């Protein structure tokens, strides 16, 4: 029978074994796929090198701090990009292989799948963050820890939760409308790059966009990180607003995903997704 949209559709007995299975599959796919390695590792490394070189150039100008803004923004932005990519594209690998149905006709619950996808994203992001931070430190003498360990940790948590929300919303739309809008999995997140003022102060944005920027949790994180380059004490207020917004976004994304997933099963789209 139909389940109401605000409840999870299955009896939810979480199994760590099934969560591990999905994470393991993600690991295997990443290991075997040149596309994933390029989209995540290669892209991140090249980006940090390019932005690092730009920062070297800018450090010789009137405002050397702007060079550091770009690097801190770039490193933190990768948390959003990689986590969101991992969640959205992770499901697409199985849709392209016509394997998603096989997985959901096993006793896998939606919660287990989502949790596994989030953990897999977290692992990949953690690894990439370490790699690009080391590159920034050794090649461009920029230490991300300059913003303070607690600030970095809070930024990581906030940006990860935001990326989960965006990834889950994109996944919901893909499940509902099928592969024809799969480009969102790569492209949509970049909309937030200017809107959250990732590489420049919010004051640079035109007035209407400035107001809009504060609707998104990463804006507070990027602002706090830029301030922390000068004064690494923790701005709990800013990070707290970001976290509170994130909780709302995250809950909304789960509700939206559940609603769209059920809608997709109602109209038969979920089964058709694999063509």
């Amino acid at each position, binding site marked *: 029978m139909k389940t109401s949209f605000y409840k999870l559709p299955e009896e939810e*007995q979480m199994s760590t074994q099934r969560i591990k299975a999905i994470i393991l*599959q993600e690991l295997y*796919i990443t290991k*075997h796929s040149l596309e994933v390695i390029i989209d995540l590792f290669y892209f991140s490394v090249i980006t940090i090198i390019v932005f690092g070189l730009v920062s070297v150039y800018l450090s010789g100008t009137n405002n050397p701090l702007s060079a550091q803004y770009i690097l801190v923004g770039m490193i933190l932005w990768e948390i959003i990009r990689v986590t969101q990519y991992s969640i959205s594209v992770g499901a697409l690998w199985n849709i392209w292989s016509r394997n998603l149905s*096989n997985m959901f006709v*096993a006793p896998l619950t939606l919660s287990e799948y989502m949790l596994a996808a989030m953990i897999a994203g977290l692992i990949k992001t953690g690894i990439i963050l370490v790699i690009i931070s080391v590159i920034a430190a050794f090649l461009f003498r920029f230490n991300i820890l300059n913003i303070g360990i607690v600030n970095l940790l809070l930024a990581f948590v906030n940006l990860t939760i935001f990326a989960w929300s965006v990834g889950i919303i994109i996944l919901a739309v893909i499940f509902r409308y099928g592969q024809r809008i799969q480009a969102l999995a790569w492209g949509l997140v970049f909309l937030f790059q200017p809107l959250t003022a990732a590489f420049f102060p919010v004051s640079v944005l035109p007035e209407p966009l400035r107001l809009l920027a504060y609707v998104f949790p990463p804006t507070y994180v990027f602002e706090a990180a830029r301030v922390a380059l000068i004064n690494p004490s923790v701005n709990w207020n800013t990070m707290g607003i970001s976290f509170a917004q994130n909780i709302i976004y995250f809950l909304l994304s789960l509700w939206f995903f559940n609603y769209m997933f059920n809608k997709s099963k109602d109209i038969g789209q*979920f*089964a058709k997704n694999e063509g």
Partner: protein
Amino acid sequence: MQNNILDVKNLTKTFGEFTAVDNISFSIKEGEAVGFLGPNGSGKTTTIQMLLGITNVTSGSILYFGKDFFKHKQQCLQRINFTSAFNTLQGRISVWENLIVFASLYSIKNPKEKIMNLVNYFNSESLLNQRYWNLSAGQKTRINFIKSLLNDPELILMDEPTASLDPDVVDKTLSLIEELKDKRNLAILYTSHNMNEITRICNKVVFLDHGQIVAQDSPLSLTKRIGSARLQITFDGDKEKLENYLKEKENTYSFIKKYIVVIDTQEKDIPGIIFGISKSDIWITDIEVKKPTLEDFFLQIARGGTNVNSKN
């Protein structure tokens, strides 16, 4: 007494104004193989998708092992499995990796041992380290079967498992299914467009048309519902005389060669026709009777035949 593995009652699925599955009811017992047949668009696939929980139902109930599927989805899915020519495993990773993932999804104890036992049974050891997308269609079918047996299911839903396979591989696959059915007392729900496969595998056939069950019986009983048969007679004698006799008896016939006539008649009338022709000084040299097959039944339904004597 055999228990019901699956009970479907008054299952209905509508997409807007369109009714894809219309109030169907059927059941599958332990060890029973049920063929699910019908023309394209008859509602077979939608029914299977509802039985697997990947499409929501509009109304009706599905019970596996006496348990409500909608309330005990995980428990039910743990005891059944699914294989299809249209769903494959993850192509980028190896066969072994795929099987390890699915063994974990089904919470199999000693997954490596379980996989190796099945791999040995299916003679597929050499495929383990290959990427799934590099396998041939026949090899993929074997691996899909291994995946579908990982949890020792009591029921497997098979959606055209032999589609796009070579005849030789089809035969091997069918032998395998027969063996699994007998050795494991496995219940099967089998969809196919190939009537010979259904006749070979299934004890019971459920015929769907326009979302409704139009017949539900054993393959033999279904073919018996078509009373007509085709009688081919090779003769030696006066063709005109034979033609006059057939006209007099109001038979439908056609001469496919000068001395070979094909007569469409009722199965019960065949002895009378042969006797009558013999008495007309026509020398019968050969007789061939073509009985109706499940395919004839299928075609009759697919073409909107109304003279199928339905029991349901």
